[in-house]
């Protein structure tokens, strides 16, 4: 069987796609690529459907050997890439042949690299998605991150015209990694639990990403937020950060203890008993996904219309890439 030979798995490399819908109600998060823009752009560059399964690598990429002719593309974080020892460019369509080895150096900007291969990663579909959810070990490649020596199946190469080798995404359409990543946030949910001063402080503080930052969520540090004093409602539990257990949106922010906000991401718990104070909009989950331990983020309050406009803007950028590649 043709596929990918995993020489080294990297730090945390998993198979991901657009995510798994319809199982939130049993407590299963959607999973899926954290930076959906970069992931989808990688698929477009190799002529795949936008939602084909690809690899997401965190901090340190894998080393992979190909066993047949394919197109590949590397997007997301800034990282030097080589093909059989020769430098190749990210955000471009790269032809590979049997025996070629793709390697990554350390990332120089951002946090997550996406690798798409024409035909997609051919792991079985599980509950409507090929995304990996490692907590219960389901989906993706054996429900886990890649390990040295794995052999990944690839899908049939797509028929029809693929982008020509060397096709690329314009610099202006690629994400940038500013010193402070601004995360547009719809404030609300249980934000009434914070005092007015705490809510202002939440939006004015520049927060630092701690070492607890992964696909489950990002824990931040940089200030203390006070809760409104109250007699706790029945069933909520005694801590002022507690509410009666409720559902957590993906991207929602909670502040257990008042001093470490946590932004929940695609592999997070689906609910629990901490007050949520707002939700990072879907387009800016792409941005937080490209921050790493020690990086800085801030929250910018937006309303639902601005959130939807940002989502449309991301869609239009992907459409522009798709059109550029057809020219």
């Amino acid at each position, binding site marked *: 069987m043709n596929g990918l030979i995993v020489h080294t798995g990297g730090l945390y490399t998993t198979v991901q796609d657009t995510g798994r819908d319809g199982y939130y109600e049993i407590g299963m998060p959607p999973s899926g690529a954290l930076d959906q823009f970069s992931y989808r752009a990688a698929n477009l560059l190799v002529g795949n459907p936008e939602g084909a399964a690809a690899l997401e690598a965190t901090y340190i990429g894998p080393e992979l050997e190909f066993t047949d002719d394919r197109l590949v593309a590397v997007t997301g974080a800034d990282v030097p890439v080589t093909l059989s020892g020769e430098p190749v460019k990210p955000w471009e369509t790269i032809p590979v042949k049997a025996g070629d080895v793709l390697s990554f150096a350390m990332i120089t900007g951002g946090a997550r690299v996406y690798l798409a291969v024409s035909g997609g990663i051919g792991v079985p579909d599980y509950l409507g998605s090929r995304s990996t959810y490692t907590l*219960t070990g389901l989906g993706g490649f054996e429900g886990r991150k890649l390990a040295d020596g794995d052999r990944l199946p690839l899908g049939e190469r797509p028929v029809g015209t693929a982008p020509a080798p060397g096709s690329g995404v314009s610099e202006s359409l690629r994400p940038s990694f500013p010193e402070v990543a601004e995360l547009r946030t719809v404030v609300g949910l249980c934000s009434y639990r914070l005092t007015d001063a705490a809510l202002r402080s939440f939006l004015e503080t520049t927060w630092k990403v701690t070492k607890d930052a992964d696909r489950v969520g990002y824990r931040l540090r940089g200030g203390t937020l006070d809760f409104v004093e109250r007699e706790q409602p029945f069933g909520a539990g005694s801590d002022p950060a507690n509410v*009666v257990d409720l559902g957590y949106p993906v991207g929602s922010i909670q502040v257990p203890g008042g001093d470490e906000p946590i932004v929940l991401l695609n592999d997070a718990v689906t609910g629990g008993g901490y007050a949520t104070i707002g939700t990072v909009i879907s387009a800016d989950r792409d941005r937080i996904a490209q921050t790493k331990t020690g990086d800085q983020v801030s929250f910018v309050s937006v309303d*639902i219309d601005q959130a939807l406009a940002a989502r449309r803007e991301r869609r239009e950028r992907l459409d522009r890439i798709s059109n550029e590649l057809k020219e």
Partner: protein
Amino acid sequence: MAATTLALPPARYEYGGDEFVFVEIDQAMSLEANFKAMTITGALRERRLDGVLDICPSNASYLIRVDPERLHPAELVDQLRSLEASATELTADQVLSTRVVDVPVLYDDPWTRETLLRFRDRHQDPGATDLEYAARLNGFDGVPQLVEALSGAPYIVTMLGFVPGLPFCYQMVPRDRQIEVPKYIRPRTDTPERAFGYGGAFAVVYPVRGAGGYQLFGMAPAPVFDLSQTLPDFAESIVFPKAGDIVRYRAIDQAEFDQVRREVEAKTFRYRIREFEFRPGDFLADPDAVNNELLEVLYR
């Protein structure tokens, strides 16, 4: 029979970014709030709206995941408001078709006892077990009386979540008989799979081993989560509980625990399940009568 009015504040509608709508029925937990959340989410399910990805009733609130390219979140909120307007009372003929399930539990078991003793530094009362602490806090003479209360009246599954298959269960008794305990001061880093825990006013069974902050009271011999789907009760889903299920956490002894474990390992175990037409209005009018009927149906 007259309709039962649900004396609840107006619901609060909030956008959870561009992909979620969160609706808080009430800040406090009550069966009334949960019945209202169940009624609205049940009606929403029947509308089969294009763009609604997930419908999650959650204790005293509910959460909807939406694809905003197919359904504008503001349009969804309009629909939910209209559903709320028709759910301010429970009519006598309102029926929740559900299951009543017998869930055996070995209370004060050796495994959760071993676990909780490892984490006394994170607990409110390092000198007692979680059961001893909860018994004292809730005014019981001792652990046997607390276990009798936990095991006596049934619970309703008011939410699934946290991790796949974890049922939040609220005991179907008036508030003055509700058992309430705080969560651990700092969460444990370990909880055995199938541990029976209690936090706030909710009982849970942990589907998988992992972190947890609920008081540890016992151990269920049968799983609530089976990724391999080899047990007959998991043929259609990797998780057993469903929101709206009515469960009884029946106290068992070590011999029955061992027997159920053998059946689980032989892949022959089946939960005792009875179909039941539950009428929330009847229940709110006379909880004990309905509970007696539930248990009578379950063990018939």
